[in-house]
Every structure is written in C-alpha cells, then in structure tokens.
C-alpha cells in the first residue's frame, strides 16, 4: 500500500480507534438481543410478549439515536481535546443503496431458496452482522471488527445447526456480538485514554 493510501486509511480509522462507537453499538446490540430473548421466551398472547414486540422497534430506533448522541458527546468532551477533531465528508456515498441492498438481497434470496440450515434467523443475523462489520473493518484496517463480524457469522450458523428456536437463535447472535463489541470497545477506549492524557493547558498553545 502506498504511503498516501496509508495516511488516508489512518484518517478513516481515527473515528473507530478510540473504541467509543463499538462500545455504544455493543450496548445497543446486547439490549436488542435481550429484548429478542424476551420475545422468544415470553408466552404468546401475554402482556409481556406484547410489550416485548412493541419495545423492539422503539429500542432499535431510540438506540440508534442514543448511539449517535453518546458517541458525539463523548468525542467532544474526551477525544477532541486529546487527539484532535476531524469532520468527515458528509457527501452521501452514491453506492450506498447498493452497499445496503446487496446484503439484504442475499438474505432474502437465502430465505426464499434455501430449505434447511440457511433458512434460519440466526444465520441471517450472522450474515448481516458479518457483512457490515467486515466491510467497515476492511475499509479502516481494524482487524477486531473483522474478527467480531466473522464470529457473528459462525455463531449464527452454529445456532442454526443446533436447531435452537428461531427468535432465540437471533437473540443469542445479537447479544453475543454485542458483548464482543462491548468488550473490544471497552479495551480500546481504556487503551486510548491511557495513551492520550487530557492536556493540562490549551492544546493549541504555541500555534500563532
């Protein structure tokens, strides 16, 4: 890889290397996983089951909003004063629909045309997780994201072979991936804080 490409990848990786985004997404996936577990285990038709179903979209949408706010606030207060600020290009990727559509199409085709282990929620969940994390991980050269993506896929397939209840399998896949992200994000965040102490004075002092 030439030096210019290396520098550019390092710039993209900066957003992820403190581990904050992983931490927050890990919390969200774990909570969603627990909610899915409730959906799968609560007796059908009971208020608990109904509440769990209603909570799922609320938790997902609210969780996405919370992740954005959490990461933004902590980056402003903890990261930018230590290692600086980058505003990433806000121009939408013209291929974003393709990037999002292909994994969904793969999942849909697998549901329609498969007749055995592939047609299982945990496998679909694992495939989607793997595609998302591996694509981010390869773009920014973060091996831990790639590793967690592959872990999610392997877990999803394993759970399908174990013939666990559909919703339970998906719940375990998301909760396990969430815990893995929490752990790796937490370690990365701790390492970031120890390697980059908060400056005692104005970080730009001396820039005239």
């Amino acid at each position, binding site marked *: 890889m030439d030096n210019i490409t290396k520098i550019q990848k390092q710039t993209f990786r900066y957003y992820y290397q403190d581990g904050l985004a992983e931490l927050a997404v890990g919390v969200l996936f774990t909570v969603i996983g627990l909610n899915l577990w409730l959906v799968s285990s609560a007796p059908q038709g009971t208020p608990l089951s109904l509440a769990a179903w209603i909570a799922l979209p609320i938790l997902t949408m609210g969780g996405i909003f919370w992740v954005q706010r959490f990461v933004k606030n902590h980056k402003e207060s903890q990261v*930018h004063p230590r290692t600086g600020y980058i*505003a990433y290009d*806000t121009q939408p990727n013209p291929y974003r629909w393709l990037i999002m559509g292909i994994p969904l199409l793969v999942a849909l085709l697998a549901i329609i045309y498969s007749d055995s282990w592939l047609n299982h929620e945990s496998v679909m969940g694992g495939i989607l997780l793997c595609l998302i994390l591996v694509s981010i991980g390869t773009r920014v050269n973060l091996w831990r994201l790639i590793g967690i993506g592959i872990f999610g896929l392997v877990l999803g397939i394993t759970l399908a072979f174990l013939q666990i209840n559909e919703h339970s399998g998906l719940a375990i896949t998301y909760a396990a991936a969430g815990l893995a992200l929490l752990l790796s994000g937490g370690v990365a965040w701790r390492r970031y804080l120890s390697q980059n102490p908060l400056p005692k004075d*104005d970080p730009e002092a*001396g820039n005239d």
Partner: protein
Amino acid sequence: MTEKEHPINESWAGLASVDKLIHEPARLAVITILDSVESADFLYLQKATGLTKGNLSIHLQKLEEAKLIEIQKTFQGKYPRTLCKLTLKGKQGFKIYKKQMKGILGK
C-alpha cells in the same frame, strides 16, 4: 558536451514540474489528510504528522498563502480550535500532483 547542452532527460522532466509546495513531505502529509476529510483541526494534524506546533504552523501558513487551504479559528467550549480545510485549488493541485507522480514512478 557541457551540462548546459545536456538538458534533464525528458523522462524526468516531469519531476521538475511537480508543485514543490505540495511535494515537501510535511505539507504533503497535511494535504493528504485534508483531501480525505471535510476538515481537520490543528491538534489532529499535529498528532498525525508528528510535527512540532511551530513547524506545523509555518507549513499551514505557506499553504494558506498559496490558497491551497483555508484556516478558520473557532472555539469548542473553552478551547480554541483551528480548523483547516482544503480549497478547490488545493484539491485540484493535489489531484494533478498525484497524476504527475504516478507518471514519473510508472505506477
């Protein structure tokens, strides 16, 4: 034949026409970073390039004078923030520079 009668080999004439303002390693690193993002602040550029504050300031000043970057001084909370952004001239200049270097290095 004297040196004057032997011009630089045409294959290497391109090297002489490369923008020396961009070609300087520290400034090249700054421009490469700014080309990848909307903007970056002084602290990030300093950490990423490893330059001292004074050294980086001088390079940013030269790039600003050549209108390759824009510098905006703002505040984030109680801390001042110097934001740097590549201008259109800077983006085009960097694009030309990369093309020239590819031609010279044969990649």
